[in-house]
Structures are given as structure tokens and as C-alpha cells.
């Protein structure tokens, strides 16, 4: 797999947790992966991004217009971080609005009784687009290891809901763009 992913959102939303699940899951799928994330001052509600590169890379930083996937957890960050996305790349958004690769992750999270699980719903949704190069199991496994007991059921459910949502969407509508994302080599 050769893939560059940017996750954009606001500090305090658990983007680091989401990045960890993604990176450790990919590693367990046997993919060479390197990533980086924002820490420190910006985490207090400021704009934060994580960058993840899968393939033969030495540095975790992604150049502008090189990301295959842009994953936006707070929709107000979408426009601003667009310069990262390459031509033909896909942007996944957490938003109640309808559109290609949009998912109301926060709404779903609220509905399943895990109000802070929106990011995992979104992650599950993105991961489904990388199948069949990957399966959900390793990511569930990592989530299980990283989640404190009392949030465990909610977090696993969130990841699964997102994954299923994408599979349903793929069955209904034509599935084309998603495959581009997982250029297997």
C-alpha cells in the first residue's frame, strides 16, 4: 500500500487517539507506516493535524497537494486544510450535511450513546474505503487495548458503525472513487 493521509480537526477532540488507532492498526496489517501529530499549546482547542504515510518513507510530513485522503473531524477545518489534498484525492467529512464521503459521525455517535466517539465512527468509515487491503479486526484490537474499560463497548461500537455505514453506502450507490484510495502494490 502507498498512501498519504492527513487528519484535520480541533485540539481536545481526541485526534491523537484516532491517529494511534489508525497507525497501530496499519502496522498490524503489515504496512510500513510513519506518522506525526500536534502536541502542546495548539491542543487547547486550536487547529491540529495528524499526518500518516504508508509505504517506503523516512519522514512523516506530507507536502501540500500530496495527500491521497483528507479526513476532517471538525467541518470548519475542511476549507482551510484543502491545500494538503492532491488532485483526485478524497476528502472525508464529519458533517450532518449530505454529499460524497460525508458522514454524520457525531450524530451517529450520539445515537449509539457514545457522544465523544464521533472520531472513531469517522475512522471506521474511512477504513472501509481501504478494504479489502485491510480488515477491521486489527483496528478493533488496537481500540480495545487503548480504551479504558468504561468506554470500551461504546468505542468498539463506534468503529463498527462507521465501517458498516460505508459498506451500506457502497452497496447502494456506485462505488468508484473509494478504490483509488487503496492503491495496493
Amino acid at each position, binding site marked *: 500500500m502507498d498512501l498519504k493521509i492527513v487528519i484535520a480537526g480541533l485540539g481536545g477532540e481526541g485526534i491523537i487517539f484516532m491517529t494511534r488507532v489508525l497507525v497501530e492498526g496499519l502496522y498490524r496489517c503489515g504496512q510500513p507506516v*510513519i506518522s506525526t501529530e500536534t502536541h502542546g499549546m495548539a491542543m487547547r482547542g486550536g487547529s491540529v493535524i495528524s499526518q500518516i504515510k504508508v509505504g517506503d518513507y*523516512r519522514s512523516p510530513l506530507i507536502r*501540500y497537494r500530496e495527500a491521497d485522503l483528507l479526513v476532517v473531524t471538525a467541518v470548519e477545518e475542511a476549507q482551510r486544510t484543502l491545500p*494538503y489534498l492532491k488532485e483526485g484525492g478524497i476528502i472525508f467529512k464529519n458533517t450532518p450535511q449530505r454529499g460524497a464521503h460525508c458522514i454524520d459521525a457525531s450524530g451517529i455517535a450520539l445515537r449509539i450513546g457514545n457522544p465523544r466517539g464521533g472520531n472513531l465512527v469517522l475512522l471506521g468509515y474511512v477504513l472501509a474505503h481501504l478494504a479489502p487491503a485491510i480488515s477491521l479486526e486489527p483496528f478493533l484490537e488496537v481500540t480495545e487495548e487503548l480504551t479504558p474499560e468504561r468506554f470500551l463497548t461504546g468505542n468498539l461500537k463506534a468503529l463498527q458503525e462507521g465501517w458498516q455505514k460505508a459498506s451500506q453506502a457502497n452497496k447502494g450507490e456506485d462505488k468508484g472513487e473509494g478504490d483509488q484510495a487503496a492503491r495496493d502494490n
Partner: protein
Amino acid sequence: MKQRGLSGKVLMGNEAMAWGIVEGGATVAASYPGTPASEIMETVFRIKREHNLNIYTEWSVNEKVAFEVALTNSYLGRRAAVMMKQMGLNVALDSLMSSAYTGVKGGFVLIAADDPGPYSSQTEQDSRYLATFAKIPVFDPSCPQEAKEMVKRAFELSEEYEIPVMVRPTSWVCHSRQGVGLNKIGERDEIPSFKKDPQRWAATPRFRYRLHRELNKKIREISSRNHPDPVSNPGGAELAVVASGVPYAYAYDVIKATGLEERVALYKVDLPYPLGPEVDELIQIYPQTLILEETYPVIELQIGCRENARGRIDLTIPSEGELTPDIVAHVFDTLLGEGVSETRTPPEEGRKPSLCPGCPHRAAFWALRKALPQGIYPSDIGCYTLGLNLRAVDTCLCMGASVNQAAGLYHSFKQGGRSIPPIVATIGDSTFFHAGIPGLINAVHQGACFVLLILDNGTVAMTGGQPTPAENSPGKRIEIEEVVKGCGVDFIRTVDPYDIPLLIQLLKEANRYARDEEKGVAVIIARHPCLIYGARDEDRREGEIVVGEECDLCGLCTERFECPALRTGPQEGPMIIKTLCTNCGFCVFVCPQEAIKRT
């Protein structure tokens, strides 16, 4: 040496370095938290817990203390590590300079993590400069795996030459994640023994000269063994790149992505100081050589003849700001005469950070602005620097400066014969312990008059909630009130900043004491646990906060009070984001129309 087996896993650079410390067999590790270094020590604590490791660990009160505690273990012939952010090294610089002369016994590794950009610091200084200043070798890792290996190599080098050795990662190493191979934990069993040698450990100036000569000899020897690694060396390359640290990784990726493998030779430097003679020779071979390093020109300055060298000194690379893959790609194009490739527009500035919803500091700053709106507010380093957004922070120099700047303000206004404005310094609990105490003693002793508001949330919140000597630590509890009293302060009040009216009243009282009556320093301790790292059940308040009809859209709560849980809604009115709101009720107090209510 006993050994235990382990396998590989995904680690953050800081976690990887912690593994380097335990695999390297350190028996003492000490640190003071600071981004981007904090997770190194946190991980050492975790490994110690999970593997029942015999190692002495401490969160010290500041970096100088941490340095000296760790260094002493090395005097006793055992391995030790000390970790800090780059600005922390300024605090420990005195110890570093002198320890380079005395040298060490057991391997002694100093990890100083830099923050090019800067993202979470007052400067983007390059700690490698301080390594050259102190004359100690410095490793410059490019990724987590390498950072771990370099910590171990640093122990070896340190022991071989009896010299402190620095490892200098940057943010994108500290906070990168990567699969890292784990080796055996090296539990060492050297018995601590102090061999008295006053001419070394307690050298007077006369012997210091001799120690300096020995230090120079060590550095010369290490330099002669320091060879750059020829990563790729195609015949007839038009450009050679000599790189260290993360910029090496950028160069590697950009060369590959743009198909320059045949045209560019790549050399990697692990130890930027003391540089060996080979880099000078390299520069003579190629038509031009580009030096890539973060953040100051350390390798570059050690080059004898810079005629064919490109880098920061000749401004090929910008002199400030972090190096990025985009800059590297751009410079390659320019130097190879490729015409300048399309410039890629970076994203606009994002949302600025702000204090968490319900953060006790927000209440304290609001009270401060209400009580003494004409004041000057020197402040300090921590989450509360974000009091800037509430216009309650006027200065932020470095750890502990708030107290001294408040004293400075008083003396200057007084000397200048001007009426003295209310002066209120704010400092966090951990910063107070770190560097505020000497300043307070000095201020009291010299007769300065001002209000000192200690924002005590019981933790080092900015860096992830580490303990302080007063809170969350298994050690003996040091009461801030007792310390303040011991510094000679007579006016001491403690208050919960959630009680905004009471805090306002106390601030006015303190200002009367300090400014109007000129009786000295008045200290108020505003104590309430950090909502992220010290949340208590009793802080969950009943009822729900709602915005009523009375709201006249003045924007005070969203713009000036700027609670992140209060955003401007579609009709321009304030809207409470339920998932973020902590129910603290500050906004009820803030709204002049009494439109915000608790139901």
C-alpha cells in the same frame, strides 16, 4: 548485567527514547516536563511500573535540579539520563558547561528536544549550538527508531570518553510514530561508589584550565572518528546533500518522489558536532553541496571553506521557521536549474488555541479584568499564557519571569516618579516552584509592592498533567502557602476562582495593600483543579446552561470571554455546544443582560 526479552511495536519518538534509556541501562532518570520532550520521562515511569524495573526516577522541580541529580549518578560510575525541552536547557546551562569540564564516569545522556517553528515555545533555538558551546558531542536523530539507537550509542560514547553526550531530537521526531524494534532491558548492577578526586570533582580555577585541555583533547579525538554516512552516491552527481536529523528524512523522500536519484548524492551526519574532516573534503568533490539541518547552521559553521556550500548562511535556506519538505523540494529545483516548480499554497492560519471550557484560569482572568481593569499584568509559561485572549496577560518572557517583571515594573514606575498602576503578576503552581521562588524572595526583600496571583490547578497541565511538589505526587507534600510565607510575604489569601465575586473582592483588597498602602507583595492563591487532569465529581454541577430571549447579541461571551463551548450560532447569537460545556456557569456571571441562565 541481567537481560529480559521483548518484541517490536509502534512507538512515539519520545517513547522510543525512553526505551533507549532503559535498554541502555540507566539507573537514574530525571526530567522537568516541557513540549516536545514530556512523554520521554512519562514513558520511563510507565516501563518502570510495567516491568518492575529498578531505576530511580523523578520529576524534578526544574531542569537544573534534574540535570544535577542525574549527573551525580554518573559521577558514581553508573548510567544516567536527563530530559528536557530546549528552553529547559537554558535553565540547566550552568550545570552543563561545568560538567563538560569535570567530565563523567558512567554514561551520561542529556536529551534536549527542540521545537522548530516554534509550535509550543518562546524560541526556536537549536540545542546543538549549546552542545558546541559546552564542547560536548551531540547526536541528531531523524526518526523514532534511530532516536532510540542514538540514546544507546550516546551512553557508549559518553562512557568511553567520560564526557556528557547530548541527543537532540526535534518535534517531528518526538511526536512521530513508527514501528520500533525493542531489545532487552539492560538492568545494570554497578554499585554506586564515589571515588574522591577533588582536582576533578571540586576543581578550583587553576585545575579547570587542565580540565579544559583534556576536554579539547576528547573532542578532537571524537571528531577524527566522526564520518558521514554515504547513503547514496551515484557517479557524477550534480549536487551533494549533507543532512542531519529530520531534514535528512525530507531529503530522502523528496529525492525519491521527484526521481533525482541519479543527480543527487546524499550523505547523512549522525553527530553534527564535533564534525569530522570528511565533510570538508566532500565539498571539494561536488559542484555544489547543500547542507540541510534544523534549525541553526551548526554543521555549516564547522566547514572550513564554504565557497561551494549552500545552506542557511548564504540564505539558500530561510534563516527562521522550520524546514519543510516543500522548502527542500524548492531548493533542489533551484540548485539543479530546474526552473522553480509551482509554489504550493500552504493552508491559512488555523483556529488559535484557548483555555478549555470550564478552566479555572478563565474565571481567574475574568475576575482580574473586572477587579483591576487599569492594571499591568506580567505573566508566565503554561496553559494560562492563553489568558492573552482575555487580555489579562501583558508579558510572557520565560519561566518565572512574571514575579521579577512585576517587581521591575514597581521599581521603574517608582524611580521614574510616576503614579504606579495596579500590578498583578500571574504564575502557575508548577512554574512558581520551578523558578518563581527566588524572585519572590528577592521582591519581598527589595521592598517591591505588587499583587501575585498564583494560579494553582495542582498539575503541570500544558504538558499533559504531570505532578507538582504540592499535588499528585507520592512524595512529601510542599504547601504553597508555607513556601510563600517562608519567602517573607505577610498578605496571603487562598480562594477558589470558581467563586468569581469573592476573587474580585480579594484582588481589590490585595491591590489596596500592595499599591495604595505600599505594604509589600500581596499573594492570592487561586486554587481549583485543572478540569482535564484533575476533574472531580463534585465539579459536576446540576442543571443545564441555556441562552434566553434577553440576549441582545453583544458578543461579550463568545468573543471576549471566548469559552470554546460558546460559539456564534446561525442567527449570530451565542449557542452552547452541549458536548463541550462543563456546566461551570461562568457565562451566567459574565452575561450583562442576564440572558444566560442555569435551569
